[in-house]
């Protein structure tokens, strides 16, 4: 249910952006979900539905999955995170705090844990679309 906390963040941030942009209603919210964090899409979607406010009552939620792309800082190897490649306890830990991946994952080429998470880390609000009063 960690997804609820992140859904709260999405709703709060989208509301703030809509207010800044003077939108009277939000029609679409696009959320990018990095595979490294192994978010349960169904739970996130459910939480977003439950947390709807009048500002976004008819908004479409679009959830996009972004593969976890990692790059070794030592040998420049780039690879994609494979959720099946780590154990259950490790997966759960990465789910809560993706940075602990550095404790469990190392470069497939040189074995170093010193890698960058290029993309696909966690939940990001990609965009919101809405209607202004004079539209």
């Amino acid at each position, binding site marked *: 249910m960690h997804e609820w906390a992140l859904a*709260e963040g999405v709703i709060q941030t989208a509301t703030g952006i809509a207010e800044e942009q003077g939108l009277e209603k939000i029609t679409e919210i696009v959320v990018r979900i990095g595979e490294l964090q192994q978010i349960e899409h169904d739970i996130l979607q459910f939480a977003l539905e439950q947390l709807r406010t009048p500002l976004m009552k008819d908004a479409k939620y679009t959830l996009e999955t972004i593969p976890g792309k990692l790059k070794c800082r030592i040998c420049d190897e780039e690879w994609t995170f494979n959720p099946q490649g780590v154990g259950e*306890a*490790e997966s759960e830990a990465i789910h809560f705090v993706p940075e602990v991946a550095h*404790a469990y994952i190392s470069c497939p080429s040189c074995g170093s844990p010193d890698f960058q998470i290029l993309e696909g880390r966690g*939940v990001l*609000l990609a965009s919101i679309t809405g209607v202004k009063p004079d539209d």
Partner: protein
Amino acid sequence: MTDPRPGLIGRRLEGVDGIIAVSSGKGGVGKSMVASTLALHLAEKGHSVGLLDLDFTSPATHVILGIDGLFPEEEYGIIPPVTHGINYMSITFFALDKPTPLRGADVSDAITELLAITRWGDLDRLIIDMPPGLGDATLDVIRFIEGIRFLVVTTPSKVAYETVRKQLALLKKLQIPIIGVVENMTREPTDYVSLKVENDGAQYLGAIGYDERLEESIGDEARLKETKFYAEASKLYSKIN
């Protein structure tokens, strides 16, 4: 592309009356011991207290307090387990006793995540055990946590105080409240640190003498509370509101 987590941090901490970062410019001065025993002291006095270990690459409060076999509950975020009367959160829950080498940007991301998802509830005080220095963790708690106050720890060493002096200067420049400076591990009375602290415009809270029996009590809450360190530290902690 917007990160939805920073906006949540204020909400997660809205039930906390006061947040104290236990910090130092230098490692090895006893920050984690001060943070752990300050949390124990406050809990003993009947306050609701949380302890957050933000020293991600070298966490130590779980060792000092003998915390093992616990895991946060997942409920609309994560809820810190309660141990020794303290609501406790540390990256050790997730690193599973493995080394976690993190660069600055990763430290920042992990701090943001933990602050955004941890539901502390209502607390009188949240104590944060900081990593040494003026790096990402220090800058992040200043950026994210409104009203945070710093309790600074040093030893009588000129080397340690030199880093603390710079830390005090930074905090003053950023107008971050400084509770005061604790001088830890003193072996003989000297006014070197107290005069320096006063000169640097902060409050000198007092000294805690070097306790050669302290090591024997690590990991055992009851024995920690019987140490000379705890008795002397508690006198200083009672000055902190």
